[in-house]
C-alpha cells in the first residue's frame, strides 16, 4: 500500500513551554489518528493524555495541557462528551470542522431512492397488415383438420400474419427532396423495391398421386418436418423420449417375445390412454422416434405399425433359415412385374404345395404382391401381418419378408394353421380387409375324406412316408400327394442341399421318383411333376415349364403322344 505522510508545519502560540507541550500533544494525536483522513477529527480523552504526559515526567500535566490548548485555539479544542473533557484536532493541525454533507452521498439513500422513469416517446401507429385473399382458406382447412382429429384447439394467431407479410407485395418509394435553389444538388431518383408476388401452384387437373409425390419431395427434405409413412408434423412438436423410455420400450418388446404395434406400446409402456387427446400424437412420436434408433426395427404397415427389436424369437419355421428360404424363392424375382400394383386385388386363391405346408409358408409372388401392402419405410425388410381364420376363430401372427435384390419374398408363420386344418394340395383364399395389416384366410370346408398322403417323417432320419390321413378341406386334386400318384416317394430321403439348389437336378430326381419308367426313360404329366418338385423346393409352374422347355442337354422333352406329358432320359442329366 502506498502511503504519503502528511507533513504540515504548524505554528504554535504561547510560551515556550506551551509551544513545546502543544507540539508534543499534536504529535501524539497525529500518531493516534495516523490512518484517518486529514480533516477527520481526532479525539483523545484529556485525562488520558495528561496521564501519558505525567508518565513522561511532566508535572501538572492537565493544567499545563489546558494552558497550551488555550494558547493554540486554532489547533486544538476541548469538547465535553459525557462529562469528560476531550481534546480534538485533525492531522492537518487545525480544529475539526463540520464536514457533514447532509447525507448527499449516503448509499442507503441513493439505493432506496430510484431515479424517475424516463418518458417514452409516443408509439407510432402501425399500419395493419392486410391478408391476401388466398389465405382465407387456411382457417377453413385448419378447422377441418381439427374436426377430423376430434378436438378443437385454438389456432395460433400469431403465426398467420407473419406468413402473409412474406407474400404481400411491398413497394417502398422515397419522395424526392424539393430543390431549394439552382445550386442545390440533384435529387436522388425515386427508388422502388418490389417483391414479386408468388402465386400458389394451380393443382387442378393434377392427380393425387402426383401431388403426393411433389409433397414428399419438398417436405421430406425439410429438417423441420417429421414424417413417418403418410403422416406429417413439425419436428419440434413431436414428443421426445428419454434413454429410459427407449430402454423400457425395448425391454417390454423382449418380455412379450413378439413384435408389438405402436398403440400397444403407447398404452402399456408409456401409459397413454387410448382415445385421449395425446394418444395419436404419442403413436406418431413412437413411430418417428423409434425409426431413428438403430436398436428398433419397423416391421409394420400403414395401419398396423409393428415394432421389433433384437432378441425376439423368430416368427415361423425353424427348419430352414430365412436366408435359405429367400434363396429358394429367388426365382420369383424374375416373375415379378416391373411396376408392382400393391393392394389392387381383393383376394387371392392359392393351392398349397408340400414345401409350403411343412414350412408354414406362402410365396410372395406377383398375385400376392397385388394383395399385400408395399413396404412403408425405405429399406424395410419385412412386415408383420395378422391372418385371421374365421373358421377356427384364430388369428395368426405372420411375417412377410419382402424381396431383396438377390432373394425372393415369402410369408411365414402359418405352420399351425396348416397342420390343424389343411393338407398339401388344399385351396386357401386370402382376402384383404380395410386394415392393410390384417387379412382373412379361409379354406373350403368339406366333408371328411380319407387317403394315404405324403408326410415327412422326422422321428429318426428324415424320410418321406405315406400315412392314412383324414382331411375336411377343399383340395386341388392335381396337387394332392397320394400314394397312388407319387408312391415312388415312399421311403425316399430329402435331396442333398447341393442338388436341391439346382431346379434341373430336382426335376430330374422327381422324374425318377414319380415318373413312369418306360424303356429306360421316365415320363410324367406336368401337373404330377409340379406337385413332385414342390416336395423338395418351391418351384412355380412358370419355372418348371421353363426348365423343361429350355433344357440344352436334351434330357427333358415334351412327349408328342401324351397330353402335357414330358419325358426324361436319365443319361443326359443336366
Amino acid at each position: 500500500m502506498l502511503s504519503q505522510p502528511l507533513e504540515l508545519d504548524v505554528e504554535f502560540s504561547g510560551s515556550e513551554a506551551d509551544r513545546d507541550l502543544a507540539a508534543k500533544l499534536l504529535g501524539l494525536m497525529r500518531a493516534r489518528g495516523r490512518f484517518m483522513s486529514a480533516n477527520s477529527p481526532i479525539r483523545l480523552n484529556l485525562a488520558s493524555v495528561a496521564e501519558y504526559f505525567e508518565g513522561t515526567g511532566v508535572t501538572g500535566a492537565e493544567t499545563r495541557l489546558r494552558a497550551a490548548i488555550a494558547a493554540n485555539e486554532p489547533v486544538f479544542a476541548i469538547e465535553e462528551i459525557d462529562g469528560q473533557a476531550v481534546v480534538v484536532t485533525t492531522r492537518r493541525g487545525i480544529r475539526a470542522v463540520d464536514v457533514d454533507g447532509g447525507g448527499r452521498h449516503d448509499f442507503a439513500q441513493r439505493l432506496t431512492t430510484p431515479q424517475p422513469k424516463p418518458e417514452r416517446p409516443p408509439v407510432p401507429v402501425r399500419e395493419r397488415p392486410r391478408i391476401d385473399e388466398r389465405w382465407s382458406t387456411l382457417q377453413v382447412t385448419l378447422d377441418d383438420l381439427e374436426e377430423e382429429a376430434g378436438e378443437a384447439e385454438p389456432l395460433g394467431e400469431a403465426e398467420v400474419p407473419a406468413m402473409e407479410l412474406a407474400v404481400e407485395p411491398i413497394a417502398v418509394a422515397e419522395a424526392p427532396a424539393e430543390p431549394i435553389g439552382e445550386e442545390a444538388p440533384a435529387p436522388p431518383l425515386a427508388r422502388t423495391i418490389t417483391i414479386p408476388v408468388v402465386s400458389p401452384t394451380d393443382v387442378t387437373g393434377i392427380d393425387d398421386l402426383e401431388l403426393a409425390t411433389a409433397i414428399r419431395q419438398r417436405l421430406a427434405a425439410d429438417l423441420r418436418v417429421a414424417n413417418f409413412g403418410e403422416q406429417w408434423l413439425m419436428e419440434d412438436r413431436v414428443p421426445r423420449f428419454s434413454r429410459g423410455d427407449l430402454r423400457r420400450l425395448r425391454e417390454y418388446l423382449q418380455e412379450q417375445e413378439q413384435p408389438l404395434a405402436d398403440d400397444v406400446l403407447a398404452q402399456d409402456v408409456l401409459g397413454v390412454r387410448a382415445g385421449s387427446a395425446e394418444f395419436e400424437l404419442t403413436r406418431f412420436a413412437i413411430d418417428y422416434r423409434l425409426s431413428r434408433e438403430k436398436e428398433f426395427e419397423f416391421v409394420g404397415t400403414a395401419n398396423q405399425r409393428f415394432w421389433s427389436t433384437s432378441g425376439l424369437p423368430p416368427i415361423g419355421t425353424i427348419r430352414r433359415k430365412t436366408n435359405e428360404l429367400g434363396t429358394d424363392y429367388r426365382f420369383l424375382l424374375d416373375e415379378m412385374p416391373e411396376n408392382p400394383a400393391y393392394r389392387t386385388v381383393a383376394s387371392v386363391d392359392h393351392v398349397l404345395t408340400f414345401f409350403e405346408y411343412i414350412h408354414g409358408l406362402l410365396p410372395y409372388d406377383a398375385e400376392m404382391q397385388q394383395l399385400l401392402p408395399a413396404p412403408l419405410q425405405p429399406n424395410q425388410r419385412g412386415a408383420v401381418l395378422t391372418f385371421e381364420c374365421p373358421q377356427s376363430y384364430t388369428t395368426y401372427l405372420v411375417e412377410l419378408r419382402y424381396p431383396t435384390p438377390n432373394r425372393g419374398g415369402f410369408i411365414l408363420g402359418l405352420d399351425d394353421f396348416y397342420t390343424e386344418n389343411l393338407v398339401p394340395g388344399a385351396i386357401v383364399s386370402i382376402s384383404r380387409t380395410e386394415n392393410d395389416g390384417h387379412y382373412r384366410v379361409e379354406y373350403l370346408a368339406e366333408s371328411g375324406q380319407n387317403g394315404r398322403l405324403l408326410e415327412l417323417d422326422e422321428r429318426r432320419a428324415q424320410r418321406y412316408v405315406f400315412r392314412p390321413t383324414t382331411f375336411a378341406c377343399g383340395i386341388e386334386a392335381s396337387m394332392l400327394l397320394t400314394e397312388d400318384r407319387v408312391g415312388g416317394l415312399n421311403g425316399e430321403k430329402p435331396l442333398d442341399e447341393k442338388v436341391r439348389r439346382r431346379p434341373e437336378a430336382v426335376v430330374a430326381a422327381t422324374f425318377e421318383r414319380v415318373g413312369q419308367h418306360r424303356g429306360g426313360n421316365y415320363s410324367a404329366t406336368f401337373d404330377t411333376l409340379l406337385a413332385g418338385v414342390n416336395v423338395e423346393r418351391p418351384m412355380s409352374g412358370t419355372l418348371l415349364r421353363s426348365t423343361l422347355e429350355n433344357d440344352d442337354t436334351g434330357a427333358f422333352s415334351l412327349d408328342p403322344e401324351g397330353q402335357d406329358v414330358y419325358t426324361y432320359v436319365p443319361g443326359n442329366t443336366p
Partner: protein
Amino acid sequence: MGNVEVEKRMSTPVKLNDEDVTYLLTLLRNASQPITTQQLIDALRRQSGPPEPSAPPMANDS
C-alpha cells in the same frame, strides 16, 4: 391451346413453389395431431382454388 398446355403440364412432374410449402408448413405448425398426406393434398387444392365466400375472417382481420 388449352389441351396443349394441359398435356405439357401432365408430362412434366409438378413441383411445389415456396408459397405452397409455406402454406403447408403453416398447416403443420398449427396442427395438434399428425396430418396425413391426403389432408395436405386437400389443403393444397383448396388453396389453389378461388376463395370460398363462406370462409370465416381470420382472427386478426377486422
